C-alpha cells in the first residue's frame, strides 16, 4: 500500500487484563453497582418482539423492594401457601447443602458443591415451569430437584455412591440424573447441556408436544462454544427453551470480567442473537418466578427462546476443593447489595403477615432434622469412604452400551479374576 509504506508514528498498544474490584484484604464498596429500584422494569406482552424490549437486557427485573413489598408489573401475586412452600424449599436446599458439605469434610464422600445464596434461581424455576417441562441443569440447580419433591435420600445415595445410588456409583457426587423429575443427567463438562436443551425443545416442537425445556449455566460457562451453538440454534428454529445464565460473579477464582462482564451484561447476549433477553435480580425469588413464567409462556406460544441472566452471588466456595479467601475479599458475600434470597422472601412473608421469626426458626430446625434423617437413611446404603463394594464390580461394565460387547465381557471377566486374586 503506497500510502502506508512508511511506519506512521503510532502509540504502543496495551493489553487490557480484567481485574476484580476487590481482592483478599480489601474492604468492599458496591456503590458503583447500578441497582434499579424494584418495580421499575416494564413487563412486555408475551408476544412482544424481542427487539422491542432490549432495555430489559440491561436493567434488572426486581419485585421485592427494600421493605419486602412485592411491587411493579412483574409481581406475580402468588398465594401465601405457595410462597411458604418456596421459602421452605430454599431453606431445605440450604440445609441439604450444609449437611452434605459436612459429609464430604467428614470423609463420607469425595466432593460436594453448594448453591448457597443462589437458591432462588432454581427453586423459583421449579414453580414457574410445569412439572413435565424438561430441565437441563448445571451443577448448582439442586433446588430444582428438591422443589420438584424428589427424594433427598435418593440424592444423597448418589452423593455417597452407595448401594442405593441409581447411577451405580458411576458419577461424581452431585451429578444427578433424574428422568422422573424431568432433570437431565448433569455433565462434568461445562455448557454441553445448552445445545442439548435446545435440541430437546426442538424435538418437542417438531412433535407438536406442549412441553418446553429449560437450561442453566454459570456466567463463566457462557464463554464455551456450546453456549453460542445453543443460542444460534434456538434463534434459528425459535426453539421453546429458556436459557438461564446464573451470574454469581465468580467462576472458581475468576471474576465475571473474564467472561465479558466489563463490557456488557450477560442478558445482552440475547440481544446479539435477536432473542428475548431479561436481566433479573436472582436473589429475588418473585422476580425469578415472574421472569421464568413469562419466558415459559412465550415458549409455549411459539414465541421462541428467552435468555435470562440471574444476577446473584456465589456466597460460598466453588466446591469442597476450593478456598475463596485466596482470591476474593471476605466481605463480598455479606455486603452483597441484593441480599440473601431466603431472608428476602422471609421478609416479604413477614410483611404480608404470613410468617414470623418463630415459625422460621421452627422450620429451620425441622429441616435440619429432615435432612439429618434422610442422611441417616441414606448412609444405611453405605458411604463412599466405606470402600469399593457398594456396587457389584460387574456394574462398571454395564451401560457403556445397551448390550455388552465381547471386549467388555472379557475385561469384566478379567477384573473379576483380579478381584479374586486380590482377595476381594
Amino acid at each position, binding site marked *: 500500500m503506497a500510502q502506508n509504506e512508511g511506519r506512521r508514528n503510532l502509540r504502543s498498544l496495551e493489553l487490557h487484563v480484567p481485574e476484580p474490584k476487590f481482592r483478599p484484604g480489601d474492604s468492599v464498596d458496591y456503590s458503583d453497582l447500578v441497582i434499579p429500584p424494584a418495580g421499575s422494569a416494564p413487563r412486555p406482552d408475551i408476544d412482544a418482539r424481542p427487539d422491542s424490549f432490549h432495555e430489559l437486557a440491561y436493567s434488572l427485573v426486581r419485585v421485592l423492594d427494600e421493605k419486602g413489598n412485592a411491587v411493579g408489573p412483574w409481581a406475580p401475586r402468588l398465594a401465601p401457601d405457595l410462597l411458604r412452600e418456596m421459602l421452605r424449599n430454599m431453606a431445605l436446599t440450604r440445609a441439604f447443602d450444609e449437611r452434605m458439605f459436612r459429609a464430604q469434610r467428614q470423609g463420607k464422600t469425595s466432593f460436594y458443591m453448594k448453591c448457597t445464596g443462589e437458591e432462588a434461581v432454581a427453586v423459583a424455576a421449579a414453580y414457574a415451569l410445569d412439572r413435565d417441562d424438561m430441565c437441563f441443569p448445571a451443577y448448582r440447580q439442586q433446588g430444582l430437584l428438591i422443589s420438584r419433591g424428589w427424594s433427598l435420600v435418593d440424592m444423597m445415595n448418589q452423593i455417597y455412591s452407595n448401594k442405593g445410588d441409581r447411577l451405580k456409583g458411576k458419577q461424581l457426587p452431585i451429578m444427578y440424573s433424574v428422568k422422573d423429575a424431568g432433570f437431565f443427567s448433569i455433565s462434568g463438562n461445562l455448557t454441553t447441556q445448552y445445545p442439548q436443551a435446545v435440541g430437546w425443545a426442538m424435538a418437542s416442537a417438531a*412433535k407438536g408436544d406442549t412441553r418446553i425445556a429449560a437450561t442453566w449455566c454459570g456466567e463463566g460457562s457462557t464463554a464455551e462454544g456450546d453456549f453460542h451453538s445453543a443460542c444460534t440454534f434456538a434463534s434459528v428454529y425459535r426453539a421453546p427453551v429458556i436459557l438461564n445464565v446464573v451470574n454469581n460473579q465468580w467462576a472458581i477464582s475468576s471474576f465475571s470480567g473474564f467472561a465479558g462482564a466489563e463490557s456488557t451484561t450477560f442478558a445482552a447476549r440475547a440481544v446479539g442473537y435477536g432473542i428475548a433477553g431479561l436481566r433479573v435480580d436472582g436473589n429475588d425469588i418473585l422476580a425469578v418466578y415472574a421472569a421464568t413464567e413469562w419466558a415459559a409462556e412465550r415458549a409455549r406460544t411459539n414465541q421462541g427462546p428467552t435468555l435470562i441472566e440471574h444476577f446473584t452471588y456465589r456466597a460460598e466456595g466453588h466446591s469442597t476443593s476450593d478456598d475463596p479467601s485466596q482470591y476474593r475479599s471476605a466481605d463480598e458475600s455479606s455486603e452483597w447489595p441484593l441480599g440473601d434470597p431466603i431472608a428476602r422472601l422471609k421478609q416479604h412473608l413477614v410483611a404480608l403477615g404470613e410468617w414470623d421469626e418463630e415459625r422460621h426458626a421452627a422450620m429451620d430446625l425441622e429441616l435440619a432434622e429432615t435432612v439429618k434423617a434422610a442422611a441417616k437413611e441414606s448412609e444405611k446404603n453405605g458411604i463412599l469412604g466405606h470402600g469399593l463394594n457398594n456396587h457389584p464390580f460387574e456394574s462398571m461394565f454395564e451401560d457403556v452400551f445397551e448390550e455388552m460387547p*465381547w471386549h467388555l465381557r472379557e475385561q469384566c471377566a478379567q477384573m473379576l479374576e483380579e478381584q479374586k486374586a486380590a482377595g476381594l
Partner: protein
Amino acid sequence: MSDETVNTRMNMIQAINSAMDVMMERDPDVIVMGEDVGFFGGVFRATAGLQKKYGKTRVFDTPITECGIIGVAVGMGAYGLRPVPEIQFADYIYPALDQLVSEAARLRYRSGGEFTAPLTVRSPFGGGIFGGQTHSQSPEGIFTHVSGVKTVIPSTPYDAKGLLIAAIEDNDPVIFFEPKRIYNGPFDGRYDKPARNWSAHPAGEVPEGYYRIPLGKANIVREGEALTVLCYGTMVHVVEATIEGLGIDAEIVDLRTLVPLDIETIEASVKKTGRCLIVHEATRTSGFGAELSALVQERCFYHLEAPIERVTGFDTPYPHSLEWAYFPGPVRITEALKKILKD
C-alpha cells in the same frame, strides 16, 4: 433379513439415501439434519429428496456448527427421537468431539441408563479425491478409543444400506463413516485408470426395502489360505484388486464395524493362515491398525509365522498434490505382501 425383495442397482450414495428413506418411512422419530442436507440434499446428495418427502421438520439444514449439530442431536435423542446428523466431511468432526466423546458416548453410562443418545452420525471420510488436508482425513481411530460409541464403515452399496439401517436402529451412538472415494464406484487404487461404477459390482445390487446387516459382524470378502488381510472401506477394493493381480490366495476380511469388532472371524482367519496384513488409509501411528495388530498378536501369537504388517497412510497431513504418493495403494500393499509371505 430383507423383508422386501425387489432389487435395484444403486451406487453408495443412493444406497445410503435409501437407508434413510426406508427408516424415515418406518419410524416417525427418525430425523435427518446437517449442513446443506435439507433443500439441496447434501453436498454429496446423500439426502436428496428426503426433505420433499418427509417435510422440513424431519429433514432440515442447520447452522454451521458441528458442536451444535451433535449437541442438539443429543438433546433430541434424549427426547426420544432418533437423529441422523450429517457432518459434511469427517475432517470437520473435531469441533463436535466434546459433544460426541463427553456427551453422546457417556450419557447412558453416567445416567445409569436413564438417558441415551441413539444418534447415527454420518460423515464422508477418506481421500483420493484431491480434497487436500481438510477433505481427506480418516479419523476413525479416534472414535475407536472412545468407550460408548460404535464405529461403522461400509465398503459397498449393499453393505452401506444394511449397516446404516442397523446403525439407525441401534440404541447407542454410532459413527458411520462413508468412504467417499467409492461413493460412485469401487476403486482398485490405480488412479490413472478409468473410474468404474457400481453397476458391474454384485454389491451394487441393493434391495429397495428394509434389510439390515448386523453391527459387529465382519464379511469375508475372499477366502484364502496364504494370509489374512484385515481392511475396511475403500481399502477393501484396493486390497482385492492387488491380491487378484498378484494371484495370492489371501483371505480378505472386511471389518465393516470397528467397534464392536468381530474378533471371532479375525481370530479364526489368522489362526488358519498364520499371517496377517492390516490395511487402512488413516495415518499410521495409533491408527486402528495398531489395535488390530495388538489384538491379533495377543490372540494368535503362537500361530503367527511372520510379523503382522500394517499398510497405512503416512504420519503426515494428507498432501494435496502428492495424494497418490500418500495413498496406501497397490504398490505399498504389494511390498507388504511380499514381506509377509517371504518365508
